Every structure is written in structure tokens, then in C-alpha cells.
């Protein structure tokens, strides 16, 4: 039932095997098996509290920030177990970037926001930083809008611009995988279109996993869709197949709007 991505062209970037996850004694993920194909967009859909965001956070171990969590099963990134004791979590997070739902920019200038990650890696020369900032902002289509006000406070940008800035900030670290948690949840329709176009372009270079509870959005932007319900992965497959011909009854009920 939950046998990973069906695309034979795309090799797996991430392979999740029998993942269980607990907050304290409450189990929130049950036996998740999922293949996430490289350089494709995988959408995680499902009603609120179905575990999709929690699952996303386990992919770069951001769940460890919360005390008292437990995890079993394996997650392989390019064949390597990311929970192996010898894995450097800092290195992992540089390869697997995440943009949170409320991923507000830092209260710094536009430039310093994007340069934050590269500076952590020891890049100090102004020219090198400027180049990275420009490239990252161009990737998210923000460069032309902000190139004359890089020194401005990032919180003076519009909501949609702030969200694209957050994505640029994640790209500046040069990750392989980009995890997006409800990237358009707080945006107006025009800014949402902008973000969706951007996600479509990002998969040329990055493996993208996007959590959304907007089914139209999942249908518009993703190649693959995984439907979560009550901590279980109910169904996964190519997006057009999931939306046109779901195999599971719960998937059908969810995408036709019979429950939310």
C-alpha cells in the first residue's frame, strides 16, 4: 500500500523505512515508508495534525529541538542513515534546508538574512558574500525588487517577499534538499502564485518536499503526492494519479472534500 514513488526515471534522494515517532508517550507517526525522488517535488497532504509537518521535521532532525521526542526506523539520505550517531547534525541541516511555516526573516537587513548561513560556514569576504546573496535572491526572483535596498530591514518587505527571502536564505547554504512547511499559508493569492512558480523552478536543482493542506496547491505544483491521515501514510503516488484515481477510500474522501 505504501510502496514509495513510482517514477522510474528519478532515483531516490531520501528513503524512509518504518518510521515511528513519539512526542513523550503519544505516538504521532506509525510505520511510515516513503521514497522521495531526487529533483522532483513531493507534496505531503492531509488534514491538520495528521503528522505531515512532524514527518517533514524528522527529515533534517529539526524535531530534536523539542525535548522528549523519540524516533525509530531509518531515514536514508543518498543511502546514508541520518540518525547514525556519527552523523553531524549541523552538516545534515546544511544539506537539507527547511523553510518553516512561520519562517519570518531575522530582524536584520535583507543582505544579512541571506548571508547568515554562508557566514556560519566561515565565508567572510564581502565579494564572496555579495555573490551568494545575489545568486540566492535571483533564484527566488527577489533580486530585482530588493537590489537597491539590501541594507533595509527585512521586516519592511511584504509578506510574499519575506517568504521568498526565507527561501533565499535557505538556498544560500547550497542544500540538496529543500523542505517547505506550508510556504504559502499566510500569503495572498498573488503572492501564492509567485511562490508556486518558484517551487516549480526550484526542482531543476533541488529535491523539494512541500507540506500543504491546500489540495489545489499540491495538485498544481507537485510531481508526487503522499497523503497522511492520523499519523499514517495512507497513499502515495504520482500527483495526477492520486488526484484522478485514488486507490484508497480515505484518500478519495479527503481530496473530494468529504473531510478536512
Amino acid at each position, binding site marked *: 500500500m505504501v510502496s514509495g514513488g513510482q517514477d522510474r526515471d528519478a532515483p531516490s534522494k531520501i528513503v524512509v523505512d518504518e518510521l515511528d515517532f513519539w512526542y513523550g508517550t503519544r505516538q504521532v507517526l506509525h510505520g511510515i515508508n516513503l521514497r522521495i525522488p531526487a529533483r522532483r517535488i513531493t507534496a505531503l497532504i492531509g488534514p491538520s495534525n495528521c503528522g505531515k509537518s512532524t514527518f517533514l521535521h524528522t527529515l*533534517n532532525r*529539526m524535531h530534536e*529541538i523539542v*525535548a522528549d521526542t523519540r524516533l525509530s526506523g531509518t531515514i536514508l539520505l543518498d543511502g546514508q542513515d541520518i540518525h547514525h550517531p556519527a552523523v553531524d547534525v*549541523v*552538516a545534515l*541541516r*546544511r544539506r537539507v*534546508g*527547511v523553510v*518553516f511555516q*512561520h*519562517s*519570518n526573516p*531575522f*530582524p536584520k537587513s535583507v543582505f544579512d538574512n541571506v548571508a*547568515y*548561513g554562508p*557566514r*556560519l*560556514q566561515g565565508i567572510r569576504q564581502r565579494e564572496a558574500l555579495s555573490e551568494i546573496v545575489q545568486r540566492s535572491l535571483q533564484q527566488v526572483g527577489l533580486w530585482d525588487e530588493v537590489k537597491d535596498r539590501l541594507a533595509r530591514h527585512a*521586516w519592511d518587505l511584504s509578506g510574499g517577499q519575506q517568504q521568498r527571502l*526565507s527561501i533565499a*536564505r*535557505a538556498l544560500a*547554504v547550497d542544500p540538496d534538499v529543500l523542505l517547505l512547511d506550508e510556504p504559502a499559508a499566510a500569503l495572498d493569492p498573488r503572492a501564492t502564485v509567485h511562490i508556486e512558480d518558484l517551487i516549480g523552478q526550484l526542482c531543476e536543482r533541488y529535491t523539494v518536499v512541500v507540506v500543504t493542506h491546500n489540495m489545489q496547491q499540491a495538485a498544481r505544483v507537485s510531481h508526487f503526492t503522499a497523503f497522511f491521515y492520523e499519523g499514517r501514510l495512507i497513499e502515495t503516488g504520482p500527483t495526477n494519479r492520486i488526484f484522478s484515481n485514488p486507490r484508497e477510500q480515505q484518500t478519495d474522501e479527503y481530496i473530494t472534500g468529504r473531510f478536512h
Partner: protein
Amino acid sequence: MSEPTEPVAPKDFSARSRSRADAVAAPIAGLRRSRPAAVAARREAGLRWLLRGATYGMLAVIGWILLDIFGKGLPVITWQFLTDLPRASGAAGGILPAIAGTCCLVAGAFALALPLGVASAIYLNEYAAPGRFVAWTRLAISTLAGLPPIVFGLFGLGLFVLFLQFGASLLSGCLTLACMMLPTIIVGSEEALRSVPAFLRHGSLALGATPWQTIRYNVLPYALPHMVAGALLGVARAAGETAPILFTAAAFYIPRLPQSILEQVMSLPYHLFALTTQYPEAARIRSMQYGTAVVLLTLVLGLSLVGIVLRNHFRKKLRW
């Protein structure tokens, strides 16, 4: 009013309380004040006056103190008083060495206590797992905050003056005052750290920052001004204390500026204490006493005020 049989609407009710004429004319059968209710209302009114009276009384005392001190002390304050060395065992001349001594003591103590306090606050708030250790540490800190200053003085005498053999000196005084400031600084710093929202920490960690990088680049820059402002309140408290420096640093009469951290210094609170109690004819040098008190009070209130203004400024500037 016109139709007495109609039930009373809330709108009429509020209108009636404004107009006495309406109140008499309108029917209030179900709402009529019973005797116990009337007693309760009188008690309420009485209590309010009592509380108000207490507040006014308190304000009057503060006002009286300030008026007395500034009224008698301000006429003494001249440029000479502030910048001259004392003469005749402090009975005449200025109070420059005492001002300088207090400034050195306070600045030294602040420089010692701030890094230590901020470091402890960072550990408690950012690194230590919540649990028994942190709870006990917090309890110890609030206990420290409540210790009488003379106990700090005795502790400083035992540890710094005698055991570590720093002698009665500026250094011992700074260290003792630093101990006294620590609780305020730690509590204020923790408050500052807690005011930095979680998304900044998470966002930084998500970009591959180590915990320390996160604190260094994305927590401290926003918390530090707030911390310094809070620490100034602790400094102000320590600046006015006599007891901690009584055995550790304060000199009765050294009519020159401090020369070394290993010698005793004059200080404003101790100078005031000495002028008031150690002279046979203390009444004849009242003006010297009040002048010293004004300078001390201004220093302490000034530090507090700067602290409060800075803190409010930073609270407003951060937009979360």
C-alpha cells in the same frame, strides 16, 4: 418612564445611573438594593478610600524625603563641592574622592558581574535541560537576591580581604559588590533571553548553525541591550549600599583620588555614614551630609532611570 409596565432594558439602566431624576421615576423592583447589599457597597467604598489613602500617604513620605534632602542639600552643591578634595577630616572642602571611589567601585563591580551573570543566564536559559538542577539554581539566585547587604560585606571580608589577601581595597570592594549585583543581572538577563522568540533560534539551527552560533548571532544581539539595561538596575542598587564595602573597601578619609586597585577608597555612602555618625559635632556639618546625600541619590536615581529608559526603549524597538 412613559410605560412603567415594560421590563427594564439594559440601555435604560445605564441611562438611569447618569440621571437622578430618571432613577426616582423608573421602576426598579427587581433590582432594588437590599440591606446586605447596601452594607457591602459601603464597605467597598470605605475600603477604596483606605487603599487610596495608603497610596497618598506613601507618596507623601517619598515626596517629603526628596524635598528634605534636595531642599537642604542642593544649596550646598557647587562646582567646588563636587571637584575639591575634602579638608578637616571631611568636615569641609569637597567630596571628589568619594565620588571617584564610588564610580570606580560600581564600574569595576559591573565589569566583573555582567559577563558572569550573562554567562550564567545563557547556560540556564539556553543549555541546561529544565529539571531539578535549574530549579535549585534559580532558588539559590533568589535567595542570594534577598540576602542582607551586611552579609555580603562579611562574606567579602572573609573571602577577598582575608583569605585571598586582597586586603581592604578597591578590588575587594568591587568583587563584593559584584556578588551582590549578580542575582539582579542573572534574573534580568534570563528575562531578556526569554523575550527573544523561538523562531529565531529554530531558523538559525535550520540553516546549519551550532547552538553557540545561534546564540552568538541570532539571540544575543537582540537580548544584550535589554540585558545591560536590566543590569543597570542592579548596579543602582549596589551603588548606594554601605554595608558590602564597609569592611572590604571603604576608607574614612583619603583626601586624594584612588591610585591603585589594592588600596582603600572613599565612597559616597560610607562618607555620608561617617559624616553623620563619626563626628562629635555632627550637627554643625549638616550641610556636608545633605550635599553628599544629594549626590548619592542623584547617582542612584540616575542609574535606575537610565536602566528603565533603556529597557523601555528596547522593548518598543523589538517588534515581536
